[in-house]
């Protein structure tokens, strides 16, 4: 098959980029695979180009480049096709509308895969007749605002399939949106086998890693660790990561560490890339988030041989961890439960060793080769069936397009009205 991914920015850093690279590289072993990056702001992909995969870009933002697009007049005009409800809307423009449209009108592929809602909408609206259209959801339906849920609700019927990273999210898509004839499958993210030897369960360190933002609830982990230290002062905690555009809890966490007298036991390590050699410095991993769209760090830690104590938050953790076997699931927001679960693994060397080995074995199901096989099987089935043909037919497609156009106008009018109202209130 010829498979074409459409990605926001293949040159940045992020979970979606990493996951798309892993998948593309694994698929490239047997298929013709390209990644089309809407934006390019540097010469080389920060995460390293995936082997065997063709990388293309549509809008060049490298100032030194002869093809620099930043001065294009359309670059300043707001996007019309890329949906406003997508959090990246401000980065899109009339220029991306036309560049993406030109790409999708001429794309030489059997399967076109979008990697975020806004791009999935582009694919639904602008892909030429022929290729199978797949929209990937790397976050969750719940995490999208009302506006985006409505927009994808009336655009996604023109996709052939939507893939989510958890079964829980796939259920949301099946029950909360009406997407007749659209196949909805959960395929988890993949994590490659680490290149370092797994942890041997002897280090007296708990390791956590993620952005230092409120949703990760590292405050809860610090509180829990105060209880761990009271029982086992020989154990310590490392938290890797930094803040992001949505916030930085570093100072608040540092104040909490100081308040609890944990300056000898809890260390904010700053960002680390790659994380594998950091996980293996520990024997237990901890995740105390309020929400995890998937739970990539849980899988990463397990692939390094660490049992993970995680909150049983929506959506991913319970689909990754088998409670009591390869890790622990504890109620969300309960520091005592986190401490108890950590101490359970800390106090029992044999249990910790066994759970670590179970984590190592269980996490092999997330290997890129195995995950790619699941995507590949889905793509092959859809290609065999033909895009939209079997279930919906051309007429329905056209009807939907017409309906889409009408709804477009209606939504635009309504949003304008809403904006006016909001501005009025503020004034």
């Amino acid at each position: 098959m010829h498979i074409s991914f459409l990605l926001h920015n293949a040159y940045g850093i992020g979970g979606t980029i990493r996951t798309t690279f892993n998948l593309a590289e694994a698929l490239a072993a047997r298929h013709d695979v390209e990644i089309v990056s809407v934006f390019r702001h540097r010469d080389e992909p920060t995460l390293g180009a995936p082997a065997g995969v063709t990388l293309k870009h549509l809008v060049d933002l490298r100032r030194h480049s002869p093809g620099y697009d930043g001065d294009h007049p359309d670059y300043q005009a707001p996007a019309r096709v890329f949906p406003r409800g997508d959090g990246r809307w401000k980065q899109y423009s009339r220029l991306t509308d036309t560049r993406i449209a030109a790409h999708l009108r001429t794309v030489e592929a059997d399967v076109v895969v979008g990697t975020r809602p806004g791009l999935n909408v582009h694919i639904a609206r602008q892909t030429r007749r022929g290729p199978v259209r797949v929209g990937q959801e790397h976050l969750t339906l719940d995490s999208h605002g009302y506006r985006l849920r409505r927009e994808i609700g009336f655009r996604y019927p023109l996709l052939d399939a939507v893939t989510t990273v958890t079964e829980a999210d796939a259920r949301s898509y099946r029950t909360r949106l009406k997407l007749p004839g659209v196949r909805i499958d959960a395929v988890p993210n993949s994590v490659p086998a680490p290149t370092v030897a797994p942890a041997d369960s002897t280090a007296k360190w708990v390791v956590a890693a993620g952005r230092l933002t409120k949703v990760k609830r590292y405050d809860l982990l610090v509180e829990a660790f105060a209880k761990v230290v009271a029982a086992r002062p020989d154990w310590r905690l490392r938290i890797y990561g930094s803040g992001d555009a949505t916030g930085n809890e570093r100072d608040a966490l540092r104040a909490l560490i100081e308040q609890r007298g944990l300056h000898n036991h809890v260390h904010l390590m700053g960002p680390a890339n790659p994380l594998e050699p950091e996980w293996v410095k520990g024997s237990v991993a901890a995740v105390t988030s309020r929400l995890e769209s998937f739970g990539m760090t849980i899988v990463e830690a397990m692939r390094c041989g660490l049992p993970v104590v995680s909150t049983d938050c929506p959506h991913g953790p319970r689909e990754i961890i088998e409670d009591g076997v390869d890790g622990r699931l504890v109620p969300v927001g309960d520091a005592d439960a986190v401490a108890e679960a950590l101490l359970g693994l800390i106090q029992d060397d044999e249990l910790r060793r066994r759970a670590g080995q179970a984590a190592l074995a269980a996490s092999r199901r997330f290997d890129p080769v195995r995950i790619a096989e699941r995507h590949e099987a889905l793509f092959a089935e859809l290609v065999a069936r033909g895009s939209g043909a079997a279930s919906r037919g051309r007429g329905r497609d056209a009807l939907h397009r017409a309906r889409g156009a009408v709804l477009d106008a209606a939504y635009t009018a309504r949003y304008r009205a809403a904006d006016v109202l909001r501005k009025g209130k503020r004034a």
Partner: protein
Amino acid sequence: MTGTTDASRPKGPRADCVADSAGGITFDMAGHGAGEAPLPERGGEPALVLRRRGAAPAEETRLPLTPAGGDRSRAVLPSTVELAEGHWDVSVGDRPVEPGIRDVRALVDRVPGPSGPVAARVPYPTADGRLAVRSWLRARHAEAGDLTFGEGACTVEGRLYGAPLGAGAVAEARLGDEVREVPASGEGHAFAFTLPYDRLARPSLDRQRVWQLWLRPSAGAEPVRVARILDDVWDRRNVFVYPESEGEGFRAAPCYSADNELCVRVTPLP
């Protein structure tokens, strides 16, 4: 303008490394192995070169790169090869080496034998993305451990290497020619001392002072610098952060220097 990335552009050499607890480091390189195009070097033998930053005259250690199967080659820095204290930049010929995966777990929580000398070598990525090795080499060394805090004072616990603790042991805070001394207690190789901050704030401050901490293991013995070097953290300034205490007209807190040496920072209150 749309376009394609040329992924075949050659990249700089990159090394994965594994550190052992004795101080040895193994460097594994992919794609730039011994069998590749001749490297621009004396003698023609491929080698990984460690050069001490800022050393005059130049100081370098050459580690032969030998085939390690497949497309890989390997260089080994044995624990027995001495590296002077400092930062050693890693290169192949004149090309800097990029850091790959650094497996330095064996350095975490290291407790060497008490006799000294103490050698610590941590492979690390520099701010501009190159691989370097931070080396400490001390005949005698006072390793700082946990710090605890009382009213207007901090207590430093640690472990002494290369010298016995004896009668008359003291800790010294030094700032230029000024020295403040407090008694140190010790048992075996474990030492502890408590430093009242107000002694570091007199005479009254007009600007920030950063006092360096030393340990004199017994009466008349040469002082030993207090530092923390026996783990994988090559720069702990932002990782080991301690509570600040407020005294009359000043704030004070222990901190680490860029070289992982323990200090006390005293800042005048506005």
